[in-house]
């Protein structure tokens, strides 16, 4: 059992990577397996620095493939384990994430997105959205929380563990190097103080009891002999995923109720959008925001409603429409015209959005 660090509400001013480590401790995480890659390193650094106080475990592995699979090993024998990665590390960790998906292993991973493809840049992008939601040779039975700041990082890291252990789908905190590296104030708390009960980790292998006396031996596999046998399993996963999606899906709206122009953005870009919306409103342009918090699964009914209500939609991302592709699929049939502002691997500023929305509203009959 890991020792608690935060017992009462504490205001901290720290980087997002540090926040994730503190939140993981608060969530009762017992072990971190990891491999260095920028911009997530300080999650590991902080976790390691805290070890004498938390009495948790850590292993620095030989690569992200190993970080992913050692995490799975730890979880299988009942430890609340997690890892973190980014960029090319996220690419090679998909091997382990696929296994987590196939075997319903409550894998938790913080993805601090950096530029891509390949090595690209080390700090910022939103280009791992598709990869985190749908990477691997499967169907994307994953839950992905996209955070927009440090309080989100604290709240959703805690939530990610409970979501993973409750529903047994791999669960991700999708952030980026900006959030990882910048400092912001955050209120750290003991989840119990918010009425959040952390679910216990349960071993799949080497649980209680003597084999052949109290229980049978447990054999788990991700190999199947028959195509139909596999489909039966995946059909049940799909049904489970669709059943829990409404319970899991989260979103935030900002001045979206009466918006003529609805900006759809996730993560830190949504914060730029909020800045832009305030400026635009002061200039008499009714802009609003729909921010999916879960980019997988999306909050589809709310999303459709917001899109139908608006006169124009603007998708904006630090990627070439990775979120937009997912959203457009879900709002099929919506006739609201849309425009895009994509900056691949580059931050979107409030000014960018103000200019873009103003150019859009020149043709808008309000």
């Amino acid at each position, binding site marked *: 059992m890991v020792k608690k660090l935060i017992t009462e509400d504490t205001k901290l001013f720290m980087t997002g990577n540090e926040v994730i480590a503190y939140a993981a401790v608060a969530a009762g995480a017992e072990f971190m397996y990891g491999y260095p890659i920028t911009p997530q390193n300080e999650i590991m650094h902080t976790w390691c620095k805290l070890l004498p106080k938390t009495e948790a475990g850590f292993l620095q592995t030989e690569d992200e493939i190993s970080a992913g*699979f*050692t995490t799975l*090993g730890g979880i299988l024998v009942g430890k609340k384990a997690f890892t973190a990665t980014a960029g090319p590390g996220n690419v090679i960790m998909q091997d382990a994430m696929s296994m987590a998906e196939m075997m319903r292993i409550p894998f938790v991973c913080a993805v601090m997105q950096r530029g891509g493809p390949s090595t690209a840049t080390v700090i910022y992008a939103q280009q791992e959205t598709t990869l985190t939601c749908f990477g691997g040779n499967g169907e994307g039975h994953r839950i992905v929380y996209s955070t927009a700041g440090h309080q989100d990082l604290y709240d959703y890291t805690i939530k990610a563990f409970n979501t993973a252990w409750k529903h047994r789908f791999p669960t991700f905190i999708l952030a980026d190097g900006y959030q990882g590296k910048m400092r912001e104030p955050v209120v750290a708390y003991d989840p119990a103080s918010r009425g959040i009960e952390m679910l216990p980790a349960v071993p799949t292998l080497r649980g209680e009891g003597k084999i052949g006396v109290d229980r049978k031996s447990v054999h788990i*596999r991700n190999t199947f002999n028959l195509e139909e046998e596999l489909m039966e399993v995946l059909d049940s996963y799909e049904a489970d995923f669709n059943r829990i999606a409404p319970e899991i899906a989260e979103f935030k709206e900002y001045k979206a109720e009466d918006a003529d122009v609805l900006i759809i953005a996730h993560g830190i870009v949504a914060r730029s959008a909020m800045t832009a919306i305030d400026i635009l409103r002061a200039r008499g342009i009714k802009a609003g925001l729909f921010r999916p918090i879960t980019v997988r699964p999306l909050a589809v009914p709310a999303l459709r409603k917001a899109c139908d209500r608006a006169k124009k939609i603007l998708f904006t991302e630090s990627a070439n429409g990775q979120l937009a592709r997912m959203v457009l699929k879900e709002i099929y049939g919506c006739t609201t015209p849309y425009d895009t502002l994509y900056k691949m691997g580059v931050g979107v500023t409030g000014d960018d959005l103000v200019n873009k929305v103003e150019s859009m509203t020149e043709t808008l009959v309000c």
Partner: protein
Amino acid sequence: MPELLTLPPRLPNAQNEEVGASKFCPGCGHGMILKTLASAIDELELKDKSVFGCDIGCSLLAWNYLDLDTVQTHHGRTTPVICGVVRARPEIVGIAYMGDGGGLAIGAGHLVNAAVRNEKMLVVLVNNTNYGMTGGQMAPTTMPGQITETTPYGRDIEKTGKPAKGAEMIASIVDTDKAYVTRATCSNLRSLKTSFKKALTNVAEGRGFSFVEVLSICPLNWRTNNVQTFERLKTMEECFKVGELVVPAGLEGVK
């Protein structure tokens, strides 16, 4: 009818009696090796302390072969999965069971680093000098001149190098005071059992990393009959020297 034929097969307690007939190809070495491993686990009474992991490749057919808590994972990834298990719960005796492709090619990085870190786990690497499950391609251990699907004119060592010596490689990087490294063969199961017992004891006593390479046979992909198969195994035993390479103090009493 002779009474002997009506007797059920004598299985080690750590073997899963529900599986029935071996799922491996006729003449495969895996069945013998796993049965020997199960006997060693019985004798050391480790059934309720162990987690067994197996790879993709032929070894995945062992996913329910033993009456042990078992996880089947991806090619080469058994080492990190079992490493994760024993790091999380050091009281568990973790066994990672793989082929030569899983250990010395796709999972070589994991194996090397687990050995260097002295992970307290056992790696069993079954060397049959080819990739069996995928249809008999060249493995790192394929012998010079050996015909496989990707060396149809024989392995040319000028182009593809000499066979990888897994046990020697591991012996050269482990902590020799703590690790146990040996190469055994399925032509001598009695000696193999002793190797397994030493390797398991080394892990169970918390000393360190254990590595057992087992020379094995693959008549289906080798396209050999029973006589040729064991002749090939003899050739392998000349190429890959059988015997202990690293023995830490404290295992003297294990027979």
